[in-house]
């Protein structure tokens, strides 16, 4: 690590300078919010308060929809839940009456709980199912609010909580809501920029790669659902107070649509965009009063237009930096020597042993009793014709497939079949045949994904940006920059990954895998699509990785590369070992030559 660490104070100053352009728009919005009481009337206080309350909900929902990519369309239900919980607790028609500042946290807990319950289907199934479960929840919450008259007052309703002085005036309440909104902005931005936020985006756009880096989907999502549910419920409590009286009619599906579309207009993975989206959508009907009845129709039209014409939303419009052209003649120039400063050297280390691995897909035996040994620091080539089971072997080792027979042993612990999420902790990293990177994230962020299990701070520490989280972030970012320098892409660190060339993505994947400081690195056709120059540089890089004591298992079709850099080569055919030995032995092996190499 010594080579990586720069002067911390200078680092901080640089980080602060880099952050300014990002913070400026937030400061402007906050300034506008603070000026409003001096220039606006009570009507504007109402609009401003409503905006702030909606944003409290949207700031949480944004992490679910914008970051994690789960289409929660019925979040008005959690708003209603929070509103009723707060109102009922304050009114005291079930339990003894509570002060509103106690009722609000209780409502937050209830909201968090239901946030998770509604989110459960999202843990296993994506998109439409989750959208439906939130929609279904919205339907039943309204029905329950109508039917459970003794508690909710049914269709007649119940009065909302009243806040004590000084929050009982229009501007006093406005100030409270703005303060809460500013706070939720801060925490949602903290989460978004932490490894937890990156994990969400990784699960959204490159779920398989996220698993390989040890990101657990249930954990990441449940934390977010708790937060989003709690924020929605707090927003509900404030909303009930603003309305002074709530009935089920107050929580129409139109509100859900507003929240949801605000995020999509704002753009995925952004905090500022959805905030502006919320502001715009709240103001819009005020300017066009005759259209008020048609507001949902307009939102729907807007939604369709965004999807079809401008999928990136406001955030993409404002992202000027990523519209500057990149140098077209750029080359990847790895500096493999720098690896020594980043990766710990290994002496001895653990060996990876596969014995009798078998796996069938239907009647096809993809792997048929395979034995394979990869020694520490060994570069082990795995070659064979298409369909011989090379990638399948990698998938078995990294846990995407559970072998039907055989054992995998790493050092002296057995590797559990399946369970790809646990491989990172065991020290196994990998790349993929088709690079799996997050197109919408920067190159640096993509590499930082690899350091996800490296963090020590908990979700709550990340939420509040406590020192441990800041240290994590600084450390992971520094390591990622150093590794980008190793693979020769440091100049592109801030560029969106989807603007890069295919070959560059391959090197990003290697840098990401090295973030784990793994004992074993599985490379799935890393040279595919690379130019000859690039292949030569890749060869140097792989050799340097091996020299650090990392065992490399290399699946490749470029025979030249294999024979140049491998210490040992295994040839597969029809899921079985056809031959194994040093490159020199394999090159002249009769069956290998006739079955695969040709000649």
């Amino acid at each position, binding site marked *: 690590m010594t080579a990586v660490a720069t002067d911390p104070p200078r680092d901080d100053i640089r980080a602060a300078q880099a952050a300014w352009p990002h913070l400026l728009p937030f400061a402007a919005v906050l300034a506008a919010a603070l000026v409003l009481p001096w220039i606006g009337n009570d009507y504007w206080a109402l609009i401003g308060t409503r905006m702030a309350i909606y944003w409290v909900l949207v700031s949480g929902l944004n992490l679910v929809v914008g970051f994690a990519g789960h289409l929660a369309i019925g979040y008005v239900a959690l708003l209603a839940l929070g509103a009723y919980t707060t109102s009922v607790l304050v009114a005291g028609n079930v339990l003894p009456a509570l002060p509103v500042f106690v009722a609000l946290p209780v409502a937050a807990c209830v909201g968090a709980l239901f946030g998770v319950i509604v989110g459960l289907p999202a843990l296993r199934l994506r998109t439409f199912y989750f959208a439906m479960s939130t929609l*279904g929840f919205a339907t039943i919450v309204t029905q329950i609010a109508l039917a459970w008259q003794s508690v909710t007052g049914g269709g007649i309703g119940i009065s909302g909580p009243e806040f004590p002085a000084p929050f009982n005036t229009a501007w006093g309440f406005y100030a409270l809501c703005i303060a809460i909104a500013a706070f939720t902005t801060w925490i949602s931005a903290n989460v978004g920029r932490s490894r937890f936020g990156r994990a969400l985006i990784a699960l959204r756009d490159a779920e*398989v790669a996220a698993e390989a880096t040890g990101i657990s989907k249930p954990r990441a999502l449940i934390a977010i659902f708790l937060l989003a549910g709690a924020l929605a419920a707090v927003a509900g409590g404030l909303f009930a107070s603003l309305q002074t009286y709530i009935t089920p009619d107050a929580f129409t599906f139109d509100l859900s649509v507003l929240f949801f579309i605000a995020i999509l207009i704002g753009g995925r993975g952004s905090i500022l965009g959805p905030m502006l989206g919320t502001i715009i959508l709240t103001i819009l009907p005020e300017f066009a009063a005759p259209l008020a009845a048609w507001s949902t129709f307009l939102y729907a039209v807007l939604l369709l237009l965004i999807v079809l014409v401008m999928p990136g939303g406001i955030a993409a419009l404002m992202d000027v930096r990523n519209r500057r052209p990149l140098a077209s003649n750029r080359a990847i120039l790895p500096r493999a020597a720098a690896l020594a400063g980043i990766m710990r050297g290994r002496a001895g280390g653990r060996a990876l042993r596969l014995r009798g691995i078998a796996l069938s897909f239907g009647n096809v035996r993809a792997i048929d009793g395979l034995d394979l040994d990869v020694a520490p620091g060994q570069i082990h080539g795995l070659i064979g014709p298409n369909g011989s089971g090379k990638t399948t072997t990698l998938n078995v080792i990294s846990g995407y497939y559970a072998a039907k027979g055989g054992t995998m042993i790493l050092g002296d612990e057995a590797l559990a079949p399946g369970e790809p999420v646990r491989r990172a902790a065991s020290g196994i990293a990998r790349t993929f045949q088709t690079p799996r990177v997050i197109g919408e994230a920067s190159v640096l962020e993509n590499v930082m994904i690899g350091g996800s299990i490296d963090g020590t701070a908990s979700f709550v520490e990340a939420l509040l940006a406590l020192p441990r989280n800041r240290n994590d972030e600084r450390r992971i970012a520094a390591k990622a920059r150093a590794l980008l320098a190793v693979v020769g892409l440091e100049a592109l660190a801030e560029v969106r990954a989807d603007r890069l060339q295919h070959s560059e993505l391959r090197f990003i994947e290697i840098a990401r895998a090295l973030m784990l400081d793994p004992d074993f690195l599985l490379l799935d056709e890393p040279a595919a699509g690379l130019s000859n120059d690039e292949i030569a540089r890749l060869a140097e890089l792989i050799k340097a990785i091996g020299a650090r004591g990392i065992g490399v298992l290399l699946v490749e079709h470029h025979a030249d590369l294999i024979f140049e850099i491998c210490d040992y080569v295994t040839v597969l055919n029809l899921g079985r070992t056809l031959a194994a030995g040093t490159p020199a032995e394999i090159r002249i092996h009769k069956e290998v030559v006739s079955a695969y190499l040709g000649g």
Partner: protein
Amino acid sequence: MLASILASGLAAGAIYALVGVTYNTMFSTSRVMSFTAGQLAMLGGVFGSLFTLKLGMPLIAGFALTLMLCAIIGVITEYVAVRPVLKSLDQHLYVLSTLAVALMIQQVTAIKWGTEPQPFPKLIGWGSGVWDEKFWLPVVACAVTILALEYLYRRTLVGRAFLAIAEDNFAARALGLPERNLRIISYALAGVIGGVAGFSGGELLLAFFANGALLNFYGFVPVALGGLGNNRGAIIGGLALGLFQQAANFLVGGIFSSVAVFTLFIVVLLMAPQGLFGASTARRV
């Protein structure tokens, strides 16, 4: 009470099943789950009431016109919300685009038709009590639809082409099947099925704009239970759901029946994510 549960459960279940089949019909040719399925059924009721009660058209004419309009709306959905996003199916943009169209349909209905439930006329007038037509009509409509679909899929060329496309889109296109036209036809067909669901269930559910969102959910539950694209699963799931819901309704009261359905939905999805009759997932790596 048992008779009431059976009658209302099967009736509601048949409507859910039909909405489920509507989902599946669109899904089979496009791999898209569309939020318009429930709205089509809602429109079946609203159009039916509009034509036969408000405008006083003869039953047959009103029915035919309803189905025709639903079919047209199905086709519009395909043009506006499905075709543009098919290229990037993995981004699931269809969830948003079809939701947008569904919201438009719902909002226009709410404004033009009104937000109060409005009556649906008696169609035939046979039976009373648990044999009232509002109970048996959806069941009969469901049965007829199934038989017609079975005939279509098994005995006609168009139906077989549907199956081919549902089975393997690329192979079907390579064989020269007019995939785009078949998709449009399937969306029209889905419109008709949704319209039948709404029309036959009109007396039970009334002509009410909010039925769309409700049926979207209750129609999706059987699809989720039965597995995407599996019509048999959707029918069994729909009828089971209707019976379950009505039994809960009669036994523990209205609030808890919807809670029970929601709980059932979540539990089944967690235990059998691919549905009870669904196939396993595709290769990921």
